[in-house]
């Protein structure tokens, strides 16, 4: 599969995806660490892609949504932003709601969100 299709599938089939350097447990960049920590604080499961372990994605993700840097956070298929935006949304209390809504929406209509 073409790498851009692979990214599209990742962001569309997972309600929350963080493209980061390293993993939430072992981040390898301070900016990725901050974004992951803000997301973890929201208390919902999220998907992540370690871009250092996938050179093809590392190389091509900036083209996907025309965003030049890492990390990149996608919620419900849409680019939210990088570290600074994620952290600001978290500080303002908005990230929590966006994350909860995305997870509830992904469970589909008819299913009760917790």
């Amino acid at each position, binding site marked *: 599969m073409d790498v851009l299709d692979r990214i599209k599938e990742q962001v569309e089939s997972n309600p929350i995806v963080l493209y980061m350097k390293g993993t939430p447990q072992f981040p390898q960049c*301070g900016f990725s*660490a901050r974004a992951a920590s803000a997301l973890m604080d929201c208390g919902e499961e999220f998907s992540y892609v370690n871009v250092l372990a996938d050179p093809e994605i590392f190389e091509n993700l900036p083209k996907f949504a025309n965003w*030049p*840097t890492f990390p990149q956070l996608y919620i419900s298929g849409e680019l939210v932003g990088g570290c600074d935006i994620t952290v600001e949304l978290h500080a303002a209390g908005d990230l929590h709601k966006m994350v909860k809504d995305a997870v509830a929406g992904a469970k589909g209509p008819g299913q009760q969100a917790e």
Partner: protein
Amino acid sequence: MNTQQTIQQKIRDAFAPLHLEVINESGMHNVPAGSESHFKVVVVSERFGNQRLLQRHRMINELLSSELSGGVHALALHTMTPEEWFAKGGKAPESPQCMGGSKAGQKPAS
């Protein structure tokens, strides 16, 4: 003009900022001394009014696209309107420390 000055000039011309800081933070990262790879930019401008953060960052990323596709590897962006800036007491957040990046475990070249 070095990269830091180019960034300053471009942002000044495009945003007529009330306040602008372009800080070279490369020294906090795993790069050779004297590098211009990691910057923190604080821009306070009326022109951000009514624009979401994503849109504000996109405008700056676009303005600095040649720097970003050249040697600039990280750009911490803090974009505020004058009202937001004063509400925050005239301060932008500190940038995080490096955790190794793609060169984790290696010493920086000198």
